[in-house]
């Protein structure tokens, strides 16, 4: 059962890391750019921002859980599990951020959840 705990940790750490990163970047007044070269030039106040540091820590936790999971399960099972971040992320956005979620997005989320359920039965 430890494997499912690892899945829960991996997915929730990823979602929480994304949320904190977005929050941290907003607090520092930076746009959320996935530009590596831009990140290298981040002002030091970003690096001292607690949300940003929390996001980095959680990303490390996510990666550690991912590695641990790989020691138990096939890669072909772990990879689809990772897509659960869309399910949790969408629910979290709805519940905690009050975001409106389109029907299309919910449909996607349902497909992902169904796909993970089916893939994990083997």
């Amino acid at each position, binding site marked *: 059962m430890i494997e499912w705990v690892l899945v829960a940790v991996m997915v929730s750490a990823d979602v929480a890391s994304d949320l904190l990163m977005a929050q941290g970047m907003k607090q520092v007044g930076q746009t959320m*750019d*996935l*530009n*590596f*070269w*831009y*990140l290298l030039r981040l002002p030091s106040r970003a690096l001292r921002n607690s949300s940003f540091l929390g996001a980095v820590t959680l990303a490390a936790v996510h990666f*550690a859980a*991912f*590695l*641990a999971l*790989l*020691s*138990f399960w*096939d*890669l*072909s*099972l*772990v*990879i*689809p599990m990772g*897509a659960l971040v*869309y399910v949790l992320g*969408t629910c979290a956005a709805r519940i905690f951020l009050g975001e409106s979620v*389109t029907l*299309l*997005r919910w*449909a*996607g*989320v*349902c*497909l*992902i*959840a*169904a*796909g*993970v*359920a*089916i*893939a*994990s*039965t*083997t």
Partner: protein
Amino acid sequence: MRIAILLILAVVMQAAGNLCLSVGMKRIAAFASVHADHWQATALAATAQPLNWLGVLFLVGFFILFATALSRSDLSLAMPIVSVEIVLNVALAHIILHEDVSPQRWAGVFLVASGVALVSLSARQRAASLARTEP
């Protein structure tokens, strides 16, 4: 055109990284089960495994290439890539790692990939509608 090449390279690096990490961590697995109550020993063994470092190197390369590609295009390109990645990773796991991927698992994988594609489509629609409402 350059962006497409960057993305293809990025996708391949990501898959390569995951493959290396999968093999590397499986090698740790036997060690881990013996030392189940001392996770620190397992963590140390994981860092001593060269395949894990190669995998991390590939993933870092993926991140750099991906971020560079995104900086030259737009973020809505990100999620279709994830869809492709999921299928590619599973396919390569079957071909290279000889993992047993049953028809049910394939069905699940394609459902997941389709779901991610729908989510990315909705994100694209949202971005487009936000752009339209901008003054």
